[in-house]
C-alpha cells in the first residue's frame, strides 16, 4: 500500500487510464519512450488529427490530455507548466497554440479533450492495430457520418406495420376483456366502455 503523493494537485482525466503504462518498445528504454510520445503529442497538437498505432496513440493521448488540463489549470503565467509545455511540444509555436487556442477551446468542456477511434488496417498486415487520434473541435469533417434511421426504409416500414398490427390486436383483446368483465355490473358503466371501443375503432 502506497501513500498518495500530495505535493501536486492534478485534475482528473476524462479518459480511461490503464493501471500500468505501456513500454513502447525501443532501444533507448524509458527515455526513448518519452521521446516517441513527445513526437506524437506534438503532431497531435499541430495537426489535430493523426493516424498512429493503437498503443502509441493511447499513451500519447493520456499525455496530451494531461498537458491540456495542466495548461487550463495553471494558465500561461505558471513557470513549471510553461516548462512542461516547452518539453512536450517540440515546435515552439505550438506552445502559443496550446495556451491561446486550445485552452480557451476546452476551458468549459465537460468531456475529454481528445477522441480516439480504431482505424481499419490492411487485410494482410502485421497484427498492428491502428487508431485515429484527434482533438475535439478540430476543423476537419467528422469521421463518422451520423446516418439517421429513415422511417421509410423498407425494413422500418415492415416493422412499423407489424407493430401497428400487434397493437390493434391487443386493443381488441383489452376491449373484449373489459366487455366480459363489465357484463355482470351496473348499467351506468356502459358509457365508458362504449367510448373506449369507439377510441379503438378510430385508431
Amino acid at each position, binding site marked *: 500500500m502506497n501513500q498518495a503523493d500530495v505535493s501536486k494537485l492534478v485534475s482528473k482525466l476524462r479518459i480511461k487510464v490503464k493501471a500500468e503504462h505501456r513500454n513502447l518498445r525501443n532501444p533507448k528504454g524509458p527515455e526513448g519512450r518519452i521521446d516517441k510520445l513527445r513526437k506524437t503529442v506534438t503532431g497531435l497538437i499541430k495537426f489535430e488529427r493523426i493516424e498512429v498505432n493503437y498503443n502509441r496513440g493511447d499513451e500519447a493521448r493520456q499525455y496530451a490530455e494531461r498537458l491540456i488540463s495542466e495548461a487550463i489549470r495553471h494558465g500561461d503565467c505558471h513557470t513549471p507548466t510553461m516548462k512542461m509545455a516547452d518539453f512536450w511540444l517540440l515546435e515552439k509555436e505550438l506552445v502559443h497554440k496550446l495556451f491561446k487556442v486550445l485552452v480557451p477551446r476546452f476551458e468549459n468542456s465537460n468531456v475529454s479533450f481528445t477522441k480516439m477511434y480504431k482505424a481499419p488496417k490492411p487485410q494482410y498486415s502485421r497484427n498492428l492495430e491502428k487508431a485515429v487520434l484527434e482533438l475535439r473541435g478540430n476543423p476537419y469533417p467528422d469521421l463518422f457520418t451520423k446516418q439517421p434511421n*429513415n422511417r421509410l*426504409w*423498407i*425494413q422500418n*416500414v*415492415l416493422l412499423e*406495420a407489424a407493430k401497428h*398490427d400487434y397493437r390493434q390486436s391487443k386493443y381488441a383483446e383489452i376491449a373484449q376483456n373489459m366487455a366480459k368483465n363489465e357484463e355482470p355490473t351496473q348499467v351506468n358503466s356502459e358509457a365508458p366502455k362504449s367510448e373506449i371501443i369507439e377510441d379503438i375503432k378510430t385508431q
Partner: protein
Amino acid sequence: MKRHITYLSKTLNANGYTKCLPLSRFISTQEAVERRNHIFSLEKKRQIEQVGRIEKIEVRYKGIPKDTTFIMNKDLSTPYDCTKHLGQWYMESSALAVLDGSVYWDMHRPLTESCTLELQHFKVSEPQQVNKAFWRTCSLVLGACATNAFKTSVPVILHSFPQPDIRSGSFIYDVDLPSLPDWQPTHQELVTLGAEYVKFIRQNHALERLEVSAALAQEMFVDNEHKTAQIPSIARTNGKVTVYRVGDHVDISKGPLISNTSQIGRASITSVHKLTGSSESGVKQLYRFQGVALPTGVVLNHFAFSILTDRAKKLNSARSPLGPDIFGKKEDDMEVQQSAAAKA
C-alpha cells in the same frame, strides 16, 4: 418444333379459334416457359434491329461522386450502361433510375431521349418508389419460383399479383393449381419453396423489360388462360403490354422493377392460402403464395425478422381476384397498364 407451335398459334389466332382450342392442353409447363422465353428473345432481337441508325443522346448524371454527362446511344443504352462508367458499386447497388427528377425508369430499359439521370438504391432518403419496385420484383420472382418448384405432373398456371402494398407485410402471387384441389402445404414444403426462391435469386438474373403488342402477348401466354383473359384489359389504353423476363421466366407486370435479383437479400416463403371464388367467375379456386424479403445489405436481427415472417403467415388482405364478395371491391384487380409506360 417451336417455330411450328408459333406458327400454329398464329394461324389459330388469326382464325379466331383460340377460345375453342385451348393450347394449354397440349404443352407442359416447362415447354410453355421455354416457348415464351424464345418468343421474348426473338421479339427483343427484332426490336433492337428496328432501331436502325444509331443516334446519340446526352445523359446528364446527377449525384455521387460528381455530376457528369454521358453520351449514350438512343434506344439502346440503358441506365445500367451509364452505371458501368461509374463503377462496380453503382452497378450492383442501383435499383432504380429517375429521369428528369420525376420519371421512374427501369435500370435495363433503353433511354429514348436526352435527360437527367439520378440513381436510387435502397437507402436513399425517399425510398418509397424503390421499395415498391422491390416488392413488385419479389412477387414476380415468386411466380417464377412457383413455376419451377412443382413436378412436371402438376400444371402451374400463374394468375396475377396485385399492386405492391408493403404495409400488408407480405408480397403475394395468386397461382392456379388445377390438379391440387385441396392442398395444405406442410412446413417442409414451405421451406423447400423458400429454398427454391433463394436459389433462383442467387443466380443473379437481370430483369429485362420489353413492350410488346397485345397480339404477341396473347401468343406468348396462349397456354395460360388467366393471362390471356387479362391481356385485353391491360392493353386497353395503348395496345401495348409490358413483359419482363427474369432468367427464363416471362411475366406481365406494369413495372418498374429493380435491376437484378441479386439485390434481393434475405427472403422466405411463409405461407400458401387457398382462395375460393364465387360461382360467376370462371376460376373455382386459387392459391395465394405469400413471402417476405429484404434487400441485400439490410441487416435485421433474427428476432425482428421472425416477427416479420410470423406476420407474413397471415392471409394477406389484398383483393382476391376471384371474389368481390370476400374483400368487397371490383374485379379489375390485375395490374392495369399505367403511367410509367405512358412516358414511352
